[in-house]
């Protein structure tokens, strides 16, 4: 009971921290480099604890992200569902990739997410975004190993602590 509660705290805490990080202001030159934290953490938990994460939860998390971020309602929900579906489908293979290969896979997923977002903006009639639009997947892929190691370390500590 204690163990599952600590794991729940880590799970929900990491998700809540995503929203705070997404809203965090940065100097204007650094703004395009902000990665899609919610996607990174959802990928991590889909790989490591898929019984907790399903398409329904991803949809709801995306909706909360939309409401907080002020974008079109349903935009992040759709992006997260697409991303999560791919990760869950290929989870068995992704899980055992070496770290560099996982980063490349994360880069491909985030690029796909940006293309999807571009499609949504085009349908909504917005003008084409500037070239810095494509920087966020790169920082996301660079941040992935650190995020993975950090969350893995915290989970391992919780496990040994209870053991």
């Amino acid at each position, binding site marked *: 009971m204690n163990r599952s509660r600590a794991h729940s705290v880590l799970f929900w805490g990491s998700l809540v921290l995503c929203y705070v990080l997404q809203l965090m*202001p940065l100097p204007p030159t650094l703004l395009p480099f902000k990665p899609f934290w919610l996607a990174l953490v959802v990928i991590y938990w889909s790989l490591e604890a898929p019984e907790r994460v399903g398409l329904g939860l991803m949809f709801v998390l995306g909706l909360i992200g939309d409401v907080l971020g002020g974008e079109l309602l*349903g935009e992040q929900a759709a992006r997260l569902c697409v991303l999560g579906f791919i990760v*869950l489908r290929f989870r*068995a293979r992704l899980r055992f990739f070496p770290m560099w290969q996982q980063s490349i896979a994360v880069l491909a997923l985030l690029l796909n997410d940006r293309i999807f977002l571009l499609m949504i903006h085009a349908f909504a009639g917005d003008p084409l975004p500037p070239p810095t639009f494509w920087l966020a997947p790169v920082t996301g892929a660079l941040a992935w190993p650190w995020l993975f190691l950090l969350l893995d370390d915290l989970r391992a500590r919780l496990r040994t602590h209870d053991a």
Partner: protein
Amino acid sequence: MAIARNETSPLFADSALGTLKLTFYLTVAIVLMIADHRGGYIEHVRGTLSTAIEPVYRVAALPAQLGHDARLALADRRRLAEENAELGRKLMLADAALNRYASVEEQNQRLQRLLDVQHSLGLSAQLARLVEVDPGPFHRRIVLNVGSNDRVTVGQAVIDATGVMGQIVETLPHTSTVMLITNPSQAIPVAIERTGLRTIAKGGSNADTLELPTIPISADIKIGDRLITSGLGGVYPAGFPVGEIRAISNDASGLFAAAVAAPSASLDRSGEVLVLHQIYDAIGPPDLAPAFGPPANLAGDAEPIKAGKP
């Protein structure tokens, strides 16, 4: 154990059920997006959830706030430490104190200018500060720390001392969102100060310029011309500086000229802004005359013809 769990859960097996679930969620999301794009429901949702959203904004703004306070406290500590140092560093000490006062004086001057604008125009306005939150990098909005509890309503214009910044589009009890004039879906009626030519300035694909898309080719317009609000449309009061023309060219169809202007407000740097209280009457054609026809005592049985009836 993980493998057994894989096989029992239908989502992870390569079956049609997984794709069906995805299709369902994507359909719901697309319907929501279309409904929001047309109907603007997200403002209702955020208004209802405002009690939950505002603390998240405050938490996200905390690090920037702490950074400002720490910088100020560090300046104090440095001044005390240098005052206790040897006599030879008195000049450097004087310089350090001057730097700190210079930044405070600059802020004071900015506030004075804002107050002057408020007094000289005789407008009822409200001072507001930016909340350091990034609501979406490509949508060019800013968040202010006043909301509906401070009598701020949707549609009020927001200016700073040097020009027009934008319009309030959404209010929560203690925060409100401003759509900047460089937002692609924002258009502001402007006039060229020198000639009086009236046209419209829209936000464009570049985050720090305005576009004036349809200008008659024969119009008298030069680089360096200043743009002011024309007051038409009833949102922004007339006579406010909006920007300055930077480039003029033919537009894509060749039928009109298009110009690019740089906004005169510091859209990415302002810390304090003014929210104008009055919503101005639209300047437009006068209302139709009321019912016309013969005088009532001579009308007889027929009813007087009312304006507007076919």
